[in-house]
């Protein structure tokens, strides 16, 4: 029985080729038939080769270490040579000699500078954000007086916007059967039976500015009349027109009267107008006795109004004309405005004094009182017109 050590002696001799030919053949035959022996041989081989490779590795490591040292030494050398060659006691380009601490610091810096940069930027950003934020917060809270002035300006702006909007939107309303589309359109209604009409001043702005060349009034029966501006009161948004067609005779007897006094809060009111090609009825209540921004020349009414309603008549339940529709406020729900009829009456009075071409005969009897709403409207709609402005 051979011990493991004996086998190892045999294997080693075999590897070195020291076995006699007979023994060698014998071993090879046994290796191929005996799996246990074969495994033993494999293990022996693995062990010795690992040992040899390990030795090799240690030598390589040593060699590489040596190479590194040599390289560092070679890097140092030129500086020394330079020193000798020049014959100077110091080198011309002195190598920076740095202390251990400084080298640590430099290593730290080169390793962490990206992180530090980011941290610094974040800090700076945070400081500025805080400062600006604080300032903004203070500005928002401290000055009440400034808020007040801003508010006033805002109202100014809104007022402009309100007017401008009704103009601009009016432009968009097309008139289908016209040969050329009108530039603006609004609503108007009869003031007297003999051809005077009332509308909003802003509807005919273009005519005043001489930009518009013609003013057409079109009734429910699509009958057209040329008209001209008699007077425009921009402050109260009122305008008086007169039909200048020769063949025009009369509107007929007006069914409504003009209220000279003020209407009451909460009164049911309605209007007729031409926000589109057909006449449209709108109903609501008188919700305030002052208009936009506290303007006492206007009522605030809760009638849904659209561009094109401007200049329409505003009547109360008895059929008294109490106002002329003027505009609406866009940022407030259901707030529309109408010029009070008392201003209209006063305007007509003042025009009478100026010796008009033709006298104004305001209607004196109201034919609408007591009639049901549909009947009122049937009478009324013949006296409400589309006012179209062409440029």
């Amino acid at each position, binding site marked *: 029985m051979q011990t493991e050590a004996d086998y190892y002696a045999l294997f080693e001799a075999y590897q070195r080729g020291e076995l006699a030919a007979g023994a060698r053949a014998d071993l090879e035959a046994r290796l191929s038939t005996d799996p246990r022996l074969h495994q033993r041989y494999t293990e022996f081989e693995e062990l010795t080769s690992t040992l040899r490779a390990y030795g090799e590795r240690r030598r390589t490591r040593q060699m590489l270490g040596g*190479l590194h040292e040599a390289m560092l030494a070679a890097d140092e050398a030129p500086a020394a040579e330079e020193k000798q060659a020049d014959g100077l006691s110091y080198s011309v380009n002195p190598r920076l000699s740095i202390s251990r601490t400084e080298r640590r610091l430099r290593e730290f810096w*080169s390793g962490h500078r990206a992180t530090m940069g980011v941290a610094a930027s974040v800090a700076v950003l945070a400081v500025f954000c805080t400062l600006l934020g604080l300032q903004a917060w203070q500005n928002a809270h401290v000055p009440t007086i400034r808020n007040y002035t801003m508010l006033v300006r805002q109202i100014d702006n809104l007022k402009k916007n309100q007017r401008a909007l009704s103009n601009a939107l009016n432009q968009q309303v097309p008139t289908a059967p016209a040969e050329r589309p009108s530039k603006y359109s609004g609503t108007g209604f009869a003031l007297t039976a003999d051809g005077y009409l009332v509308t909003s001043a802003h509807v005919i702005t273009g005519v005043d500015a001489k930009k518009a060349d013609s003013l057409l009034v079109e009734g429910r029966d699509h009958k057209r009349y040329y008209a001209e501006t008699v007077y425009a009161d921009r402050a109260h948004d009122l305008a008086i027109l007169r039909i200048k067609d020769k063949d025009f005779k009369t509107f007929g007897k007006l069914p409504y009267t003009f209220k000279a006094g003020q209407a009451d809060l909460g009164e049911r009111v309605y209007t007729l107008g031409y926000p589109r090609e057909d006449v449209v009825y709108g109903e609501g209540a008188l919700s305030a006795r002052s208009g936009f921004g506290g303007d006492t020349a206007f009522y605030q009414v809760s009638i849904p109004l659209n561009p094109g309603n401007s200049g329409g008549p505003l009547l109360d339940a008895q059929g008294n004309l109490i106002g002329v529709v003027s505009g609406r406020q866009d940022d407030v729900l259901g707030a529309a405005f109408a010029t009070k009829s008392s201003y209209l009456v006063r305007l007509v009075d003042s025009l009478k004094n100026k010796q008009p071409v033709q006298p104004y005969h305001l209607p004196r009897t109201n034919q609408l009182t007591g009639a049901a709403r549909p009947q009122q409207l049937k009478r009324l709609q013949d006296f409400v017109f589309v006012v179209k402005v062409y440029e």
Partner: protein
Amino acid sequence: MDSTTALAADAQLIRAIQGGDERALSQLYRLHWPMVSHFVLQNSGTEDDARDVYQEGVMVFYEKVREGSLELSCQIKTYLYAVCRRLWLKRLTTKSRLHGVRLLDDDDYGPYLNTGAEDDLHEAEERDRRFATMSEALTHLGEPCRSLLEGFYLLDKSMQDLTAEHGYTNADTAKTQKYKCLTRLKKLFFASYKEA
């Protein structure tokens, strides 16, 4: 230097190293050290870290060259960069226990992802583990077996020298002793190597 001449120069260098030219290896070593040291210093390492990583990286390269099994699909520079990058990333991860370590790369040395360096590194790691086990087994083996085996296998000393060194009566006694030592080493080595 364009890439074809660079590849030609690389091939020449590899042939020289394979032939055992130590000056060629020294040249190569110096050539690529600045790149790796810069990379490690850039990524929060020290000069010593750079040295360790570079030595390790060159070792992988050198052993592959000596074996003749290096299949280089790129420049040596790129290969070394890839190996060292991987090694440093591994160290950083174990050191900082951070999972998402991000490295600042030098774009000049890309593309480092398809250099075959990964496979070579896995191979090298396996070999490292084997050597570590061997070193441990040798330590556990105790004297005089350890110095006997180290002398014979690692330092390539002849049996005669070892007989004289250890005071054996003749070379045969030394040989018998060596084989006994080998059987003990085998048990130690395979026990810990297989279980690991």
